[in-house]
Each structure stands twice: as C-alpha cells, then as structure tokens.
C-alpha cells in the first residue's frame, strides 16, 4: 500500500521533471537576443560572418532538438556543460552560488520559525480582545510586505542611523563567520517576515484548537500542569499545517531570494540566474533553472510523503 503510493508519486515526479526540462530548454531558446550579440556589446564593430563563427564556436548553430538531446543526455550523466564564455563547468558556478542562497533561506526560516512560536502563542492568548484584530492586521501586513522594499528601507535606515557599518555583499562563513552573519542578517530579516507571519498564524490556530480539546479542559479543571500538555498538544497540532506549508515557503524563499540578493549584492543563485539571462548564457541558465526547480519539486515530494506519513487519512 505505502510502497505503491510512493511508486506512483515517483512516476509523477519523473514525468514532471521531464516536462520541466523541456519547458526550461524551450523557454530559454525562445528568449530573443543571442549570446554572441550580447557578449560583443552594443558598440562592437563586427561583421555577420564573424558573429556566425562565434555562434558556431559555442554550438548555437545546431538544430534545437539536437541541442536539447545533447543537453539532457549530459544532464542525465551528470554533465551540466560549461558556462558559455568562461568555459568554467556549470556545476562549479552553481556550487559557488548555492551556498549564499542556502544560508540566506535557512537563516530566514530559522528567524521566522523561532519568532513564530512565541508570537503565535501570544496571538492565541489575546484572542477575543481588542488586540486580536490588530494582530490579524499585523500578520496580514507581514505576509504582504514586499521583501525587497523592506530591504531597501532597512539599508536606508541603517545608513542614516549607523553609517560605517558593513552590511553589503557576502563573505564566506569559513573566511569570516561574524562578517558572514552580519551581512546576511538584514536580508534574512527582510525575507523572514512573511514566513514569520505565516507560521505564527499556524501556531495560533493550533493553539486555539488545543484549547478547545476536552482533555485540556479536563486538565485545566483538575489543575494539573496545563501548560505542558497545552504546548505539547498545540505544537503537535501545528505540525501538519507546518509540513504542508514547507513546500509553499520553499517556493517563496527561492522566489524572494532572487530579488533580495539583488538588493544586498549577495552572490547567490538569484544573481547567477539574472546574470545568466542578461548574457544569454544558455548552459548556465538551463542548469540553474533546472536545479532550482528540481530542489523545489523534491521538497514538495518529500512534503507529500511526510504528510502522508503523519496523516494516514491521505492515500494515493
């Protein structure tokens, strides 16, 4: 039973990944403007023949199906190709850029999750009072604040309040742990707000739900350690919605990071992606989109499995 469930999900996964690879490839080839023209810049003196030579050098002269088969064949054998002009293996480029993004997303998630529990509990506590509506408004505002705008405003505020603080760019953690965290904290906060709002709401409704349970009432009536039971129950209650929202949050983080990295000059996958689009670096672009999407799909796949595991009502 369980195995067949996993198997059918896996089949879906393969189909989806194949579709993703085709769409990624086609989408990129449909983008107007070619790599050669861009590398030369708008002012270069160059004849059409010369451009054809350059195009042939990077394999853009072959039919598109051949290019796709060539690419997907490479991907399946673990060869993502080379960056168009630097000839650096694409896998190396991605390896360099993936850490800042992982760190940024992870830090946002940690900040969001850590603050969500006390905030959610507080929101549940204040239920029914005048404060409640304020908190609901606050949490919706948290969900809808544009993270890049928040980032810019924080940069602006900090330049005015604390000039001389180094907060832009990126230093690898291994080189300078403190500097690394110092530079990531602002973008992580900017990115964390919607996550915080989302999780706090989950915690709140789980908490309220727990309060309604008979045995809590019983416990309360008996005067035994109400708190411990309450928290245990509420947090367990929050687990299922939390697991389901992990997929959504991953998507949000991957999307949000693209813009936030741009604002804070963090050399992550978002920058790699935008740079690759700008220079029509097809191999790099294909690999980056494919990778990010595969990560996203994989997370959702795992979420599905975990969800099915903790909530046995879900079958096939």
């Amino acid at each position, binding site marked *: 039973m369980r195995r067949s469930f996993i198997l059918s999900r896996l089949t879906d996964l393969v189909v989806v990944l194949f579709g993703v690879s085709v769409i990624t490839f086609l989408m990129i080839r449909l983008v107007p403007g070619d790599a050669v023209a861009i590398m030369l810049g708008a002012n270069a003196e160059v004849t059409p023949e010369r451009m054809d030579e350059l195009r042939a050098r990077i394999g853009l002269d072959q039919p598109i199906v051949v290019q796709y088969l060539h690419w997907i064949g490479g991907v399946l054998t673990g060869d993502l190709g080379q960056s168009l002009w630097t000839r650096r293996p694409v896998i190396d480029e991605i390896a360099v850029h993936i850490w800042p993004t992982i760190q940024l997303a992870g830090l946002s998630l940690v900040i969001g999750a850590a603050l969500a529990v006390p905030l959610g509990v507080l929101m549940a506590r204040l239920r029914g009072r005048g404060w409640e509506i304020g908190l609901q408004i606050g949490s919706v505002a948290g969900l809808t604040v544009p993270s890049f705008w928040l980032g810019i405003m924080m940069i602006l505020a900090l*330049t005015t309040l604390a000039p001389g603080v180094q907060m832009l760019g990126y230093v690898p953690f291994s080189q300078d742990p403190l500097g690394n965290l110092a530079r990531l904290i602002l973008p992580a906060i900017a990115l964390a707000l919607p996550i915080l709002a989302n999780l706090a709401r989950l915690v709140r409704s789980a908490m309220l739900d727990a309060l309604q349970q008979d045995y809590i009432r019983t416990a309360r009536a008996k005067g035994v350690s109400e708190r411990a039971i309450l928290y245990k129950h509420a947090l367990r209650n929050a687990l299922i919605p939390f697991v389901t929202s992990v997929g959504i949050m991953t*998507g949000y983080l*991957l999307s949000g990071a693209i813009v936030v990295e741009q604002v804070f000059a963090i050399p992550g996958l978002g920058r790699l992606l935008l740079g690759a689009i700008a220079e029509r670096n097809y191999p790099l672009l294909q690999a980056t989109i494919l990778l990010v999407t595969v990560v996203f*799909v994989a997370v959702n796949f795992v979420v599905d499995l975990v969800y099915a595991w903790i909530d046995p009502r879900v079958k096939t």
Partner: protein
Amino acid sequence: MASAAPATARRRPPTVLIVASGFLAATVLLALAAPLVAPYDPLAQSVMARLRGPGAAHWLGTDQFGRDLLTRILYGLRASLAISFGAVGLALLVGGTLGLISAYYRGWTERIVMRVMDVLFAFPVMLLAIGIIAVLGPGATTTAAAIAIVYTPIFARLLRGPALVVATSDYVMSARSIGASDARIIALHILPNLASVVLVQMSLLMSTAILVEASLSFLGLGTQPPTPSLGMMLAEGRNFLLLSPWSAVFSGLAILFVAFVLNFFGDVLRDQLDPRLR
C-alpha cells in the same frame, strides 16, 4: 468539512468582513476614479519642481521629473490593480476551465491536463514569471500574461477537487440522468458551489500578483515608463534613495497597502467560510 461548531465563541463579528470589504471597495473606487481625483497630470514633467519632499503643492512630493507622486500613485494603483486583476482573471478562466474539464471528463483528459499543470506548478513563481517575460518581452500586458500562466495550475487544482465532489454528487447525477447538457450542468450546478472558494483564492492571489508585479518591475521586467505602475515607481524611485527617498517610500507603502487590502479581504472571507481555521 468539520462539524459546524455552532455556539462556540468562534463566530467572528461580521463587522470585520464589512470593514475588509469596505476597504477593498474604497481602494478599487479610488483607482477607478484616479483621473477625477488626482490633482495633476501623471505624465506632466516639471524640471523645476523635481525630487521635492511632501508639501502643500505636492502632498507626497515629486519624482525625478517633477511629476506629482500622489497623482502617480493613484494612477499606479489603477495599473497595478488592472494587471493583477487581469492576470488572476485570466488564470481563473483558463485554469478553472481546465480543472472543471478534468473533473468532469476524467480519464486521459484529466491525466494530461493535470500533468501539464503539475509541470507549470513545479517552477517557483518568480522563476517561471521571469522566464516567460524574458520570452514575451516586458510590459504591462506581458506581465499580466506571465502571472496568469504561473497561476493557472493553482485554479486548475483548486477547482478540480471540489468539482470532483460535486460532479459525483446526487443532484448532478440526477441532472445528468434527465439529460441535461454537460455545459449546463457545469454552469448551473458545479460553478455556483465553488464561487466562494474561488473568491477567496482570487483576492489572495491578486494580493500576491501585486507583489510579483512589483518584484518584476523592480528587476526592470515589468511595466514600462511612462505609464506608472506601483512597482515601476518603486523601481525608479530607488535610484534616488539618498537624495529623495519619498518616491521609493510612498510607492512601497502603496504596494503594501493594496496587497494588504486584498489579502485581508481574502483572509476574513476565508474565516467566514471555514470557521474551523479561526
């Protein structure tokens, strides 16, 4: 659905819903009435009056061309709402149709349609939107189209589930048995049952569509000047952050406001429909 939980303290005062609807209506009205209420021409340039802070002549100040910020924000509200409504409406139309068709016909139709939807759904929102705009070229229409494509699978999935339930329900079965046409069944029996769910989803997605449009414009891929959209105003304003932050501050606040109003409405409405979540 869960038991009705009737007399518990869970009932929300409908005033919240009234307030939320009121805000939404006011925002939409303000956007529609922009040409009537805006104090200036949104495109009128005046070099002498540029990059002003808030003041008597220009309540919110002016941008780098001396254009009135309040006016442009009102017009921008209009453009942003139009883009997000267009995008979500189109997604609903296409995605919803696909979802209903899948639920109604099942079999291969469903399998193929839903697989394609799965593939589209597999991309993170911004990634797919950026890709589509790279293909279609930037602009208000293409931005709306890109967001619509990204949201299509959401509506397909959203409508397929309940539609499945409804399609196999007794009254549809009986309608079928008395020979009602497929289209008639879908239109008269299935759709009305889904209206509220759809309304909630629409307002929530319009809220995120506003944010996606803003992000795309911020990256230079959204609406094109001189037409103001809130995202584009923020994108232009951030270039003058040190000298005159007003444009960036106010257009960002406006984005936050309109996204908030939409999301709040959807949120409150959802609570009303499904009190269990409160």
